[in-house]
């Protein structure tokens, strides 16, 4: 278990290989710096038909899936069942405390907080899955190539990945969002690109394990092209690791997108958005208008916790 230590060995060690964790350990990635243990899944777990049935036996999975489903329904149909329009201002009723008419109170423009919380789920639930898919696809290709080819390519790519990992994710993301200007497309591309090295690292570690297996040498001897070996032979076997990595990254994508919105680089006013609404109203905590920030904050928290519960369930099942 050499951890991030990089002992003096061949070029394979140019990039830190995460310690392989025992099955049943809390094999989740650590966030910003993306140290990850999904390798454990690659080693220990295989996606079997029984795995899905095992998943359905886990309470944590139901809780997570239930909360996630709730927000997906809000994102799609929220505009129909929200009690008010999220943009409707009532300038005579600013900063109203929670009441029967406005369950979650109103903001300084008299907009209904409950309606903004319900409809504010839309953008984040569009942006985060797309960004995560982009990062996962790019990271998988890069990680497979790094792990499979090794050598100079791995060394160079490894250095670049390492340089990105030296910076907090949110700082890289906002640097690039400032550069290109905030829009939905920018957010997806930026967060996807920021996740690429993190995912590449996991896939690379898993690929290194698989490359030692007989079936890989066999197909190489058989004359299959590197692309075929990587995508036809190795990829299916590192899929469980990628699946775990994807769900965990989804949680961190919510973290990143919400944070960018909070910093003013995400969804722009007046579109309802949890992070942006907190940013607009947290000043009002001091006069005591806590409902304007607390409810969007709880919404973000519930969404990330839901994703993490699902990710943990999948990981537990695959690693068992």
């Amino acid at each position: 278990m050499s951890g991030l230590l990089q002992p003096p060995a061949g070029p394979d060690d140019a990039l830190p290989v995460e310690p392989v964790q025992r099955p049943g350990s809390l094999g989740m990635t650590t966030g910003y710096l993306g140290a990850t243990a999904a390798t454990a899944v690659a080693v220990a777990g295989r996606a079997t038909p029984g795995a899905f049935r095992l998943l359905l036996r886990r309470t944590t999975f139901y809780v997570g899936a239930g909360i996630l489903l709730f927000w997906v329904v809000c994102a799609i149909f929220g505009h129909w069942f929200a009690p008010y329009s999220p943009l409707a201002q009532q300038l005579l009723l600013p900063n109203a405390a929670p009441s029967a008419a406005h369950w979650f109170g109103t903001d300084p423009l008299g907009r209904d907080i409950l309606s903004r919380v319900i409809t504010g789920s839309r953008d984040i639930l569009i942006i985060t899955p797309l960004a995560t898919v982009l990062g996962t696809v790019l990271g998988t290709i890069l990680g497979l190539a790094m792990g499979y080819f090794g050598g100079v390519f791995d060394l160079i790519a490894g250095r670049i990945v390492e340089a990105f990992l030296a910076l907090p994710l949110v700082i890289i993301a906002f640097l690039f969002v400032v550069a290109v200007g905030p829009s939905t497309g920018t957010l997806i591309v930026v967060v996807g690109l920021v996740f690429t090295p993190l995912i590449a690292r996991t896939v690379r570690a898993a690929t290194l394990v698989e490359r030692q297996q007989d079936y890989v040498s066999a197909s190489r001897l058989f004359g299959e092209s590197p692309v075929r070996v990587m995508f036809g032979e190795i990829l299916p076997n590192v899929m469980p690791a990628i699946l775990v990595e994807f769900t965990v990254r989804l949680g961190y994508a919510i973290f990143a997108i919400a944070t960018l919105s909070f910093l003013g680089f995400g969804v722009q006013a007046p579109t309802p958005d949890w992070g942006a609404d907190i940013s607009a109203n947290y000043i009002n905590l001091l006069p005591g208008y806590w409902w304007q920030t607390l409810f969007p904050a709880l919404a973000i928290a519930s969404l990330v916790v839901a994703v993490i519960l699902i990710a943990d369930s999948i990981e537990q099942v695959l690693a068992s």
Partner: protein
Amino acid sequence: MATFLLRRLGLMILTLWILSLIVFFAGQILPGDPARATLGNLAAPSAVKALDAQLGVNRPLLTRYLSWIGGLLHGNMGTSYSYRTAVEPFVRAALLNSIKLAALAFVIVVPLSIIGGVIAALYAGRAADRFISVTGLALSTVPEFVSGVVIIVIFGVELKALPVTASAGANASDFQQFRHLILPAIPLVLVLFGYIARMARAGTIEALNSDYTRTAILKGLPRATVIRRHVLRNSLLPTITVIATQTGYLIGGLVVVETLFNYQGLGNLIYKAAIAKDFPMLEAGILIIGVVYVLATLIADLLLTYLNPRLRIGGGSE
């Protein structure tokens, strides 16, 4: 040992160089003209042009990169576009502030998460373990501004127990400043707890399953002695690495916390510099974070090598 050290130093310098490239060229594709941004939309084109020339941004990219990196190597971080004075004093003051906040967060989170991780490992698979592990994981994905808001509502607004701004003011005593930093430190503690606890847990489980632990138990040592003398000493090694890698996050990822609590740290400095398109300030701030991260990783590696003789010889411990 000497080759190991040289290799690590070489890789460190390589990483920093690539980092400087990323930072510089990401800074250069930021749209807009720094002189225009400084002077505003109504300034005369000739004035903008003159300031561009004064700031040196009309030179070719490569020339600018070389003069920037040359200056850095001489300890000159450049001149701020916004303040028209040297960047260095701003960065120095901000770094110092961030270190205070980060140090407080560390002092709270390290013992707490190691205890949490060890308890989880000792009860692996049981309710206490699942509770600590899942809670830590969930907390680590809740953005700092979310937990920050909840904390402000509870402790600052409802209980009025602690101040909700991070800076106590210029004349405040150390104790007052300390009180002001408690609330801002909590979101950082919450995010970090999950990572460190997880590593401590994994390390402890590995040590518990090892041959030397089995031997220690079989020769009849009391459980507490086995855990203290054989398990913990080995299990905390990987945790050191994780703590080191989180240093970069702590110093740099403070953007949100420092904005929320209005604290003049490095994160806040970078945030404001990005909005003002003050490239020299932005680039210097981000590079400092990179340097801190790389140094922390190096120190952790050296510490690990020192503590674990097996790594000095070559292979890992498995």
